[in-house]
């Protein structure tokens, strides 16, 4: 057997094994985040395996997560989790903190629950309508009322936790709501404001936390103004004619900048190089509502699952995959 051939076979394999053990030895993974137009390194990422949670909220500098069936307190940096609520068979559709009490809305109910110290769900407030989404802001909860027939007529309400008064919010979303796309979104907390972004449209709304009014409705750089086509059925409301991916997935606010985890690359942020492995996070100035820049985060994982959401805790950016969490600093 040709000795040179044997050497040429084993050297690259040894090199790969060497690199593998070198990387395994140090568990720190480093990514370069790059601004679209002005490249700069944004962070060091640390990989934490198998944490299993995919939505994280921060309260009193502690991390809480949910897998939609239960709420967990997550230790950092070990990412071990301790269950703080009983395990449900129905998914939790919204949850948050009112002081130290966890309030949660559960799918297919008309009730907001609180979690008692033993972790049991206790009814907190009953409503005459099904609650679709909740967001707790100071002493109020913003509720998304699910209409009985379809979500074309979903409406936002504000429920004051002290006075128990419920007020319908006047939103500026109706003209975008063909198909319910304007109300199909999620909330982001931002000091005195609340951001409501639409999943399937390149838009977001700003809500005043004190007065509970919709201040503005703005376009993102993704230019996805029109919702995908829908088929209307007079008797059954409507349904979509095909599956489509979300435009905005989630977001967070830091230093008066809105970071929107988007599923779309616009012409403004596209630059040379395929982005098949990356999602963009588009950054907007919340004072001027101007687009600032974008940076990319890894999109797919092979053995660890798909990127599901992104959460910020202080300067730590949590990239939450279905079976893995990557933590970065921005």
């Amino acid at each position, binding site marked *: 057997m040709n000795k040179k051939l044997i050497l040429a076979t084993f050297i690259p394999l040894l090199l790969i094994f060497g690199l*593998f053990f070198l990387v395994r030895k140090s568990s720190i993974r480093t990514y370069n985040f790059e601004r679209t137009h002005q490249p700069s390194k944004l962070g060091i990422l640390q990989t934490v395996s198998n944490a299993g949670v995919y939505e994280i909220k921060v309260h009193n500098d502690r991390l809480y997560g949910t897998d939609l069936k239960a709420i967990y307190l997550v230790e950092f940096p070990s990412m071990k989790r301790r269950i703080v609520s009983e395990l449900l068979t129905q998914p939790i559709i919204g949850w948050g903190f009112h002081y130290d009490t966890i309030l949660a809305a559960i799918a297919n109910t008309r009730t907001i629950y609180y979690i008692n110290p033993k972790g049991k769900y206790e009814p907190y407030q009953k409503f005459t309508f099904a609650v679709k989404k909740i967001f707790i802001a100071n002493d109020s909860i913003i509720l998304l009322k699910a209409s009985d027939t379809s979500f074309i007529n979903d409406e936002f309400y504000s429920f004051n936790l002290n006075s128990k008064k419920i007020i319908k919010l006047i939103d500026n979303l109706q003209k975008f709501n063909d198909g319910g796309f304007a109300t199909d979104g999620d909330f982001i907390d931002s000091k005195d404001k609340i951001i409501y972004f639409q999943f399937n449209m390149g838009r977001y709304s700003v809500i005043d936390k004190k007065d509970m009014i919709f201040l503005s409705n703005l376009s993102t750089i993704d230019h996805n103004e029109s919702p995908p086509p829908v088929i209307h059925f007079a008797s059954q409301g409507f349904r979509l004619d095909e599956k489509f991916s979300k435009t905005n997935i989630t977001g967070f606010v830091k230093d008066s900048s809105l970071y929107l985890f988007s599923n779309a690359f616009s012409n403004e942020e596209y630059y040379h190089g395929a982005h098949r*492995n990356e999602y963009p996070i588009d950054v907007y100035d919340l004072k001027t509502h101007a687009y600032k820049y974008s940076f990319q985060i890894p999109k797919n994982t*092979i053995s660890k699952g798909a990127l599901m959401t992104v959460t910020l805790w202080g300067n730590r950016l949590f990239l939450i995959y279905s079976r893995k969490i990557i933590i970065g600093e921005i």
Partner: protein
Amino acid sequence: MLIKKYFQVYHLFVRIVLIFLFVYAAVSKAIIFRQFLIQLSESPLIPIYLVSFSGVFIILLELFICGLLMTEKYAYLGLLASYSLMLFFSAYMIYILKFAPSIPCACGGILGHLDHSYHLVFNIIITLLIIPLLIFNPDRLRVSSS
């Protein structure tokens, strides 16, 4: 004699394919060098302090192997180096597909647009093309000019 002639044609064909492949890969990486470094930095097997070095080293290595393949004297060495590099890339791809937390692709040009599985198959095919030339050293099979 006929087999030797065919083998020499095959030898020349593989060398041309490899030269084209490495020049194309090196140039396309060099053109988007900044992007190439970012993609390398996302590689789970390359520590961050080796990213810049690896980026330059890979491009220079590919061009160096091209140089070896272009000369008659060092063609065998070039084939050995090509085989090693392609084997390395194949093992890397297998690792990426099997174990990596993300699937970065730092390959330049059209190769970067290939699906990772097809890319691995392509690498393996190129590796297999080289093996006969290493087992049967074409120097020994050189057709006599007389």
